[in-house]
């Protein structure tokens, strides 16, 4: 890049005492927009993600996990054994230097390390101290253990995800760890920085992962508190659309039945106009042209039959061609993309340059999730690979 781009958070210093996903991703976004972020780890309290796959091909050690590296680009790393008594003074010097303190370590340990808010304001009254406990610093479950895999079911995602004839399997990932918890935390920190710009005052933020993760499921919780209804998982449908599902297309490799070669397309019709355009795209087959499916009410009442017919129609189609055709007719459609498609196939992602490839001394060149939003005057930038 020729001209030095302006960084929004230039001069903001972050003492990042977090680990796993929810904390480090939040701090990475601060680094991407210009903050100086110092990760604090130690050999006795290493970020466990450093030991989780995937590892760069043929490589071992603490610095080659793609899981860890993707959440820690642009940061500096410092090792400090916080269990050692002499370390406390150093930790507090870091706090005195920082604008933002961040940790998602369990309250019991944060207290043992002497890093609670009352201790931090003694050395830095303007600090914005952000705590992301699993459940909270107070309350009957404050010492309950957990991380994303256990938090996802506790916060309702498992019960509400998937098909009703299946057990509550969840979303296949530690879902709230990646956008919901780091994102909510980031919002709270940025809002607190704005407040400090106005008033000079820092503050304590608690973004308990329990509360942060249940907040996006508010409609289901509200339906219970107001109507007493206990919503359950109900597959891929929506009350205001039909069809609304993923449909299998021609596999990537002709004749292959492998899961990795499957191709699915999501198709949704919210209006009767979208439905008529879909019927046209299907070549006006007899089954689709009568009154039975003409209105949303009719399509919802006969949704299984409708989706079986659509399923039979598109099974030989190439998913991307079908998506482009349907979208050109105004029908919402999208290929169910895997990581392979997102990285290698999706021309749109390439043109926007979302994924960033960085050279890492141990892993070599590797892909990273890029800045999560685009700012027209002060774009974000991943300044270095994971430390």
């Amino acid at each position, binding site marked *: 890049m020729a001209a030095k781009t302006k960084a929004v958070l230039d001069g903001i210093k972050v003492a990042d005492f977090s680990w796993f996903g929810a904390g480090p991703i939040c701090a990475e976004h601060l680094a991407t927009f210009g903050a100086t972020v110092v990760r604090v780890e130690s050999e006795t309290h290493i970020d466990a993600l450093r030991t989780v796959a995937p590892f760069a091909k043929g490589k071992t050690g603490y610095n080659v996990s793609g899981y860890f590296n993707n959440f820690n680009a642009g940061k500096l790393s410092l090792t400090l054994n916080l269990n050692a008594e002499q370390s406390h003074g150093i930790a507090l010097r870091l706090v005195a230097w920082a604008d933002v303190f961040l940790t998602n370590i369990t309250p019991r340990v944060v207290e043992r390390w002497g890093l609670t808010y009352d201790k931090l304001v003694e050395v830095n009254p303007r600090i914005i101290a952000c705590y992301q406990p699993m459940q909270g610093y107070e309350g009957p479950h404050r010492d309950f253990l957990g991380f994303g895999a256990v938090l996802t079911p506790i916060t309702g995602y498992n019960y509400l995800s998937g098909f009703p004839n299946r057990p509550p399997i969840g979303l296949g990932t530690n879902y709230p760890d990646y956008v919901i918890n780091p994102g909510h935390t980031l919002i709270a920190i940025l809002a607190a920085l704005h407040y400090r710009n106005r008033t000079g005052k820092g503050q304590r933020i608690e973004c308990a992962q329990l509360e942060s993760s249940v907040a996006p499921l508010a409609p289901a919780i509200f339906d219970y508190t107001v*109507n007493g209804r206990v919503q359950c998982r109900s597959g891929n449908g929506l009350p205001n659309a039909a069809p609304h599902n993923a449909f299998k297309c021609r596999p990537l490799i002709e004749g292959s039945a492998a899961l990795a070669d499957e191709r699915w397309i999501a198709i949704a019709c919210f209006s009767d106009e979208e439905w008529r355009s879909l019927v046209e795209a299907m070549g006006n087959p007899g089954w689709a042209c009568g009154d039975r499916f003409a209105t949303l009410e009719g399509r919802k009442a006969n949704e299984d039959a409708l989706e079986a017919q659509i399923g039979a129609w598109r099974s030989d189609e190439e998913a991307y061609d079908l998506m482009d055709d349907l979208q050109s007719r105004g029908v919402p459609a999208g290929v169910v993309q895997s990581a392979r498609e997102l990285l290698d196939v999706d021309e749109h992602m390439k043109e926007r340059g979302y994924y960033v490839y960085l050279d890492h001394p141990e892993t070599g060149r590797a892909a990273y999730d890029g800045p999560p939003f685009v700012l027209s005057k002060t774009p974000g930038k991943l300044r270095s690979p994971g430390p």
Partner: protein
Amino acid sequence: MTDSDNDTPSALGDIRVLDLAGEIGQYCTKLLADLGADVIKIEPPEGDPVRNLPPFYHDDLGPEQSLYWLNLNINKRSVTLSLQSAEGRDVFKKLATSADVVVESFQPGYLDGLGLGYEALARLKPDVILTSITGFGQTGPHARYKAPDIVGVAMGGTMWLAGEPADPPNVPPWRQGYISASIIATAGTLTALLYRDTHNEGQHVDVSMQEALSITQETAMQTWDMLKILRNRNGSRGMIPIDIPGIGVYECKDGHVYGYVGSPGGAPWSDLLAWMIEEGAAEDLTEEPYHEICWSLSLRFLSSIATDPEVAKKLGSLPHIDQVLRRFVATKGKWEMYEEAQKRRLLFGIVSTPQDIANNPQLQYKRWLTPVDHPELNDTLNYPGTPYQLSETPWAIRRRPPRLGEHNDEIYGGELGLSIQQLESLRSAEVV
């Protein structure tokens, strides 16, 4: 509304937001409103279509009774305005001169076509921040593709990893694509606001739902990039390639729990075995070969399968160990299993229903559910709370969600200074 209206300071009490956002962006403007911003929701005269979405208060359909809408629009004010008419656009421009932030989610180019794009807004208010939230962002070949939530979670990679192999990939519940786009848009808006604090300049924030969701692929992106191995949907196992006793969904008497025994941080499998022995439920797991395997079950065990043939030999015993554990868990209630396991530092979580969340002792302790009076319904509704607490600038319910156009007179008359006659003529022309 300014800070002086309320004794409690709020983080964004000095910020005014014009909210043109459709469903994809309403969680964004909710977060801004809950942080204290004065969010003016601009609805078409016939009302925001999201007002028509279920669930409804007592299942009674009506534009003021969608619980989905009410939750997303608490703390906002509402005016009606048609941007289709020139008079409506003039009114919008008057509003824009006092706006710090405008949030919108139209198809890229739509506002430009109305003469209300970023350049036009910046002429009216040089330091304005325009936040645009769409499925694919403002640029690129898919920018104008229609993108309801399902298209976002499909194209963003979230669905590929969710579900049983025998089912279609699963759509996450309650529009998680919209939620992610809104969260990222809020962060983008506030980042731009911090730049404005120090440089007095606004800018255009471009948010793509697809990009916002990419990181929810967990390790799938890196696994493909580094190793050319594809992660696929595999039910409840997530990133674990084989079934390991103690990891996954377990059925209780009255529901389910989810276990992750053997991962670092929690108590080891031997503690779970000790508990089963205490309760006379260990069956033959106290005997070999099972006993020794129970002592060694952990994520490390898993990672040594590929390299250590002795470990690989033990795999045949795992289904039996799992069955014994399943029989043990089936004798417990889900809350009992969750709380007792956690007392023993064993990693189990309850699979909460919405009812369980409402009754969760930790959330109750924190008073997460918040009663809000709705005089028009002659009722008090228990609203879900916020994701975080800020000690100096706490969340406050400043107003219940607005009725359609409730603040037309207050804002058009009181704040913009339109006369009663002007307002009346806008009304009869169906501009407001």
